[in-house]
C-alpha cells in the first residue's frame, strides 16, 4: 500500500508549482484538513483563500478569481461540491469557461461509515452533464501526479475526484502518455474487456488475474477521464472482444457503465454489463465493506465477465 493518498499527492504538486506560479491559488471551504491542503495554506498563505463552510460561494469566488487571470484549485468534499454547488459550477465555471479546477475529495464511498449524506455517487453524472467540464477519476498516486501536472498547465475547467485513503498502485510509475479523452490500456486481452475508473481500476486488474486462471484473457482499460469520453476505445473493445463489463464507484445513471453502453450501442451486438452502486441511499460502512456489499469485487467482476464470455 502506498504511503500517500491522492489528495496528499495533489497538495505536493500544488506546493511544487506555487512558488513559480503566483497566479496559482487554492480555495477551501473549511476543508484544508480533509483535503490535505493545510501544508499549502501554511507555506503559501497569500495564495490560499479560506471561505468557510459555504460551497456555493467557494465555487463562484474561484470563478471570479479565474476571470481575473488566477488559476484556482477549489477543494471540497465531492458530495457537497457536486450537489450543493452544481449551479455555480454550471453557470460560473462551465458556461463561463473559467479556468477553475474543482477537486472533489473523499469521493464515492470514501466517507462510507459517515452515511449517505457523505457519499458522492452522482458526481460523474452531474459534472459530465456540464458543457466544457472535463471529469477525471485517477486510479492511483502515479496517475494523480501525472494528471496534476497536466491540469496545472492548462486553462480549462475540470472536476477531479479522488479517494480519501491511499489508493492501491495500478501503475509502477507515472503513465507517460496521459491524454484527456483517451483510456489507458492497463492490460491487453482479446476475450473480454473490463473498464474501471478511479478506485475500481485496481479491482479490474485483480479480476483479470482471476480470469486468466480460467483461461480468459481480459483487456483492462483505465477510464481516468469520463469527459471527454473515449468512445473509440469502447467501440474497439466491442469489435475486438466478446463483451464489456464496467465497474464503478457511482450509481448506474450517467456513470461509466452508461457512457460505455451509449458508445457500444453504435457497434450493435456487443453486450455491456455494469457493476455499480445502486440507485438508492447506500448502506454505511468502510469503503471496502460497502464495495463488498454491493458486489464491487474482483470475484464478482470476474464471474460476470466469465458468464459473458461463455454465453
Amino acid at each position, binding site marked *: 500500500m502506498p504511503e500517500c493518498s491522492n489528495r496528499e499527492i495533489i497538495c505536493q504538486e500544488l506546493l511544487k508549482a506555487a512558488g513559480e506560479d503566483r497566479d496559482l491559488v487554492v480555495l477551501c471551504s473549511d476543508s484544508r484538513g480533509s483535503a490535505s491542503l493545510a501544508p499549502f495554506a501554511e507555506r503559501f498563505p497569500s495564495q490560499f483563500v479560506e*471561505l468557510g463552510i*459555504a460551497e456555493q460561494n467557494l465555487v*463562484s469566488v*474561484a470563478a471570479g478569481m479565474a*476571470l*481575473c487571470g488566477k488559476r484556482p484549485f477549489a477543494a471540497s468534499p465531492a458530495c457537497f461540491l457536486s450537489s450543493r454547488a452544481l449551479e455555480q459550477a454550471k*453557470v*460560473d465555471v462551465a458556461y463561463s469557461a473559467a479556468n477553475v479546477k474543482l477537486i472533489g475529495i473523499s469521493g464515492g464511498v470514501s466517507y462510507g461509515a459517515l452515511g449517505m449524506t457523505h457519499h458522492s455517487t452522482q458526481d460523474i453524472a452531474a459534472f459530465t452533464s456540464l458543457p466544457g467540464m472535463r471529469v477525471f477519476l485517477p486510479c492511483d498516486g502515479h496517475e494523480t501526479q501525472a494528471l496534476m501536472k497536466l491540469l496545472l498547465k492548462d486553462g480549462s475547467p475540470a472536476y477531479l475526484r479522488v479517494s480519501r485513503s491511499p489508493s492501491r498502485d495500478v501503475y509502477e510509475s507515472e503513465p507517460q502518455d496521459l491524454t484527456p479523452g483517451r483510456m489507458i490500456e492497463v492490460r491487453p486481452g482479446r476475450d473480454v474487456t473490463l473498464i474501471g475508473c478511479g478506485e475500481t481500476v485496481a479491482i479490474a486488474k485483480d479480476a483479470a488475474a482471476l480470469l486468466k486462471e480460467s483461461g480468459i484473457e481480459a483487456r483492462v482499460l483505465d477510464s481516468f477521464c469520463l469527459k471527454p469520453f473515449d468512445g473509440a476505445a469502447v467501440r474497439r473493445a466491442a469489435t475486438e472482444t466478446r463483451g464489456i463489463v464496467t465497474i464503478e464507484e457511482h450509481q448506474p445513471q450517467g456513470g461509466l457503465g452508461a457512457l460505455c453502453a451509449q458508445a457500444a450501442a453504435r457497434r450493435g451486438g456487443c453486450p455491456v454489463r455494469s457493476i455499480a452502486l445502486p440507485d438508492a441511499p447506500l448502506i454505511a460502512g468502510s469503503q471496502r465493506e460497502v464495495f463488498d456489499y454491493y458486489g464491487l469485487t474482483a470475484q464478482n467482476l470476474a464471474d460476470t465477465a466469465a458468464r459473458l464470455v461463455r454465453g
Partner: protein
Amino acid sequence: MELCELKQESRRLRRQILDTVYHAGGGHIGGDLSVCDILNVLYNRQMDITPQNWNTPGRDHFILSKGHAAEALYCTLAGKGFFPPERLESMGRFGTGLPGHPNRKVPGVEANTGSLGHGLSLGVGMALAERMNQTGSFVYVVMGDGELAEGSVWEAAMAASHHHLERLIALVDRNRLQISGPTEQVMAQDPQQKRWEAFGWRVLEICGNDVGAIDQALTVAKTPMGAPTVILCNTVKGCGVSFMENRPEWHHRVPSASEYEQAARELSGGEEHA
C-alpha cells in the same frame, strides 16, 4: 460626464429601454427603469471600464447580478460604445447576440448572470484576485432586493467582510417589488441597513434614481476603510413612466401599442426624475 449630462443620459436610456423592450416583445422593464440611473452613473462617471481598456489589466470590474435588467445594461453598454446601438433591435429574435440575461459573449459583459445570487460571490473572487494583483481596481456588483433572499448572497457577504475587501462595492436596487408583489410580503428584506452592518459592511443609503446622490455615494464608497461597502439605493420600479411606477405587474410585461405611445410621450417630454 457632468451631472447635467448624466440626467440627460438617464432620459435617453429610459427611452431606449422602452423601445428595446417594446420591439423585442419581452423584457424586465420595471427593473430596467429602476436600475438605469445607477448603471448610468457607474459607466459614465465612476467606473474605469471602456471599450478601449477592456483587455487592460487593472481596470475596474462590473457585474449585473440582477441579470434580468439586461436591457438596461445593454442600452448603457451601447451608449458607451461597446457595440452599435442598432444591435439592440435584435433582442428577442432567434439567435440574437443579446440574450434576455447578460452573457459573456456580449461585448462589455464580464459575467453570465440571470440565476440570482451569484454576482456577489463572483465579485468577491474578482476583488480577491485584484488585491493579489495589487492593481487597485474596484469591483462593482448590482443586486436586486428580491435577490437578497438567495442564501449565497450572504455567504458572499460574510466572506467579503472577513477578507476586508474594501474595494468591493455592492449596490442594491431597492425598489421594494418583486414578481409576486412587495418584497416585504414575499420575503421581508428590512431592516436592510442592520443586516449589512451585522455582516461587517459599511452601509450607505440614498435615493437610487438621483444621479447626484448615486455619484456622491460612490465617491464615499471608494474611500477605503477596511471593509466592503454596500449602497442601498431606494428606487422606484418602473421609474419615469407613471402607469408603471410601483406596479409589480411591470416586472416583466410588454407595453401595448397605446401604452408604448403614452410611455414614450412621458419619457420624451417629462422632466427628469428627482
